[in-house]
């Protein structure tokens, strides 16, 4: 009997996992003993880190997208469809098209995170964001004509995708505006929900003096409750107000509605064992990537490394072995500190990040990685 592995979601985690599985289980797949199916809503794979560069006119929206089929090993059965139901007792998925449920023996949910700016009153009307193609393109157009006034980057949602992105945005904006001779006419303010400028203490300590050197203002314990689009004012839970001319927000995030409907997590984040990545509320279900609720960042590197662990565990399981691979929380993030310098951090569950001094070399390493990302998606890097 064929053992069926179904992956939902063709982002970084799902795509790397599918390719790693076909690499590890190629013989079993050829023999008809195992099937690997990936279900994704669209035909494309989207690499979201490109959107930050779109905002500054350095990349195009189309650079973030490639056909998923081209990235997947031919052994992977790709279904372009939306999963609308998960029955973890019957081990079946309901798809939007077709009358027959899709059965599975092992399910991996890699359904990611999305921004929900509508959760903050007034934000859709008054704010920008750079987490999807449409938002990044609109922000690019707004920045292109922004000559003077108050630019505010406000971190509203936490946790959010790519923990470095808000810092990167303000450091890049500072230099981008200087290069165009506009910086003297633009004030920049960065706001953060807790009592320092970043959730990870060492990153906060690295960033704070750089804000001061570059005349970037910051506000902490700043939790936006609503945005007034008429007066262009942010109102916070702490009772403070801040006026802006151009607002760039890190909006609230949520996981997929599917996860909520399946009873696997209230906000779409799936409760998992942080080392095995097995869902705590259902049998034979794993979660990887942004949708997995684990004590580290929602970052592409986490999805990538976790996919390797789950591939090893599933390969062992279908061979009748006891899976021993464990995820140690490995996370790696580049942090742009301007238009031509960057640093990076790597950390895991046990070891806090150490931030190195920024350099041009690391900036180019980040850009080079963004180009070679497509090899990561193929499971090669």
């Amino acid at each position, binding site marked *: 009997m064929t053992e069926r592995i179904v992956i939902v979601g063709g982002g970084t985690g799902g795509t790397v996992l599918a390719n790693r599985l076909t690499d590890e289980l190629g013989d079993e797949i050829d023999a008809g003993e195992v099937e690997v199916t990936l279900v994704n809503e669209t035909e494309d794979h989207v690499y979201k880190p490109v959107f930050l560069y779109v905002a500054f006119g350095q990349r195009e929206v189309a650079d973030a997208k490639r056909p998923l089929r081209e990235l997947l090993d031919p052994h992977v059965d790709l279904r372009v469809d939306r999963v609308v139901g998960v029955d973890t007792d019957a081990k079946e998925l309901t798809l939007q098209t077709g009358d027959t449920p899709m059965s599975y023996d092992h399910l991996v949910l890699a359904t990611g995170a999305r921004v929900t700016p509508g959760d903050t009153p007034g934000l859709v009307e008054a704010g920008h964001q750079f987490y999807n193609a449409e938002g990044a393109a609109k922000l690019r157009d707004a920045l292109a004509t922004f000559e003077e006034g108050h630019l505010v980057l406000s971190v509203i949602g936490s946790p959010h995708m790519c923990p470095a992105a808000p810092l990167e945005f303000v450091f890049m904006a500072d230099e981008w505006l200087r290069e165009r001779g506009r910086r003297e006419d633009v004030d920049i303010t960065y706001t953060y*929900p807790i009592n320092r400028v970043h959730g990870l203490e060492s990153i906060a300590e690295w960033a704070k003096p750089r804000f001061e050197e570059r005349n970037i203002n910051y506000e902490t314990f700043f*939790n936006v409750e609503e945005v007034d689009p008429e007066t262009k004012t942010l109102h916070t839970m702490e*009772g403070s107000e801040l006026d802006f001319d151009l607002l760039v927000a890190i909006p609230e995030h949520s996981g997929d509605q599917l996860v909520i409907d399946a009873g696997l997590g209230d906000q779409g984040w799936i409760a998992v064992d*942080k080392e095995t990545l097995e869902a705590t509320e259902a049998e034979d279900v794993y979660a990887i990537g942004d949708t997995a609720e684990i004590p580290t960042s929602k970052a592409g590197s986490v999805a990538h490394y976790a996919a390797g662990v789950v591939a090893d565990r599933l390969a062992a399981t279908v061979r009748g072995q006891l899976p021993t691979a464990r995820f140690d929380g490995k996370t790696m993030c580049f942090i742009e500190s301007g238009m031509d310098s960057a640093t990076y951090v790597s950390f895991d569950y046990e070891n806090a990040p150490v931030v190195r001094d920024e350099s041009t070399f690391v900036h180019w390493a980040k850009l080079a990685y963004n180009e070679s990302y497509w090899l990561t998606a193929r499971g090669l890097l």
Partner: protein
Amino acid sequence: MSESEIEADVTIDSRGAGCPGPLMDLIGKVKSADAGTVIELQTSDEGSKDDVPEWLDKAGHELLDVVDRGDYWSIYVQKV
């Protein structure tokens, strides 16, 4: 280890999450709760014992109690 008589309307289990997870979980819940709601934040992150009261003070909500449960703390909060 000590006990608390306080009965929470809502419990947030943030055990296992590192800073700033527990505080952000609390802020999210306070944002959506009605005034008067009593919230119990369960946290195993020792930093929460400082971060949470500091934020409550800034935002004007009430810290009712901090109870040591052995391997985690229960922080009781009332939304004003």
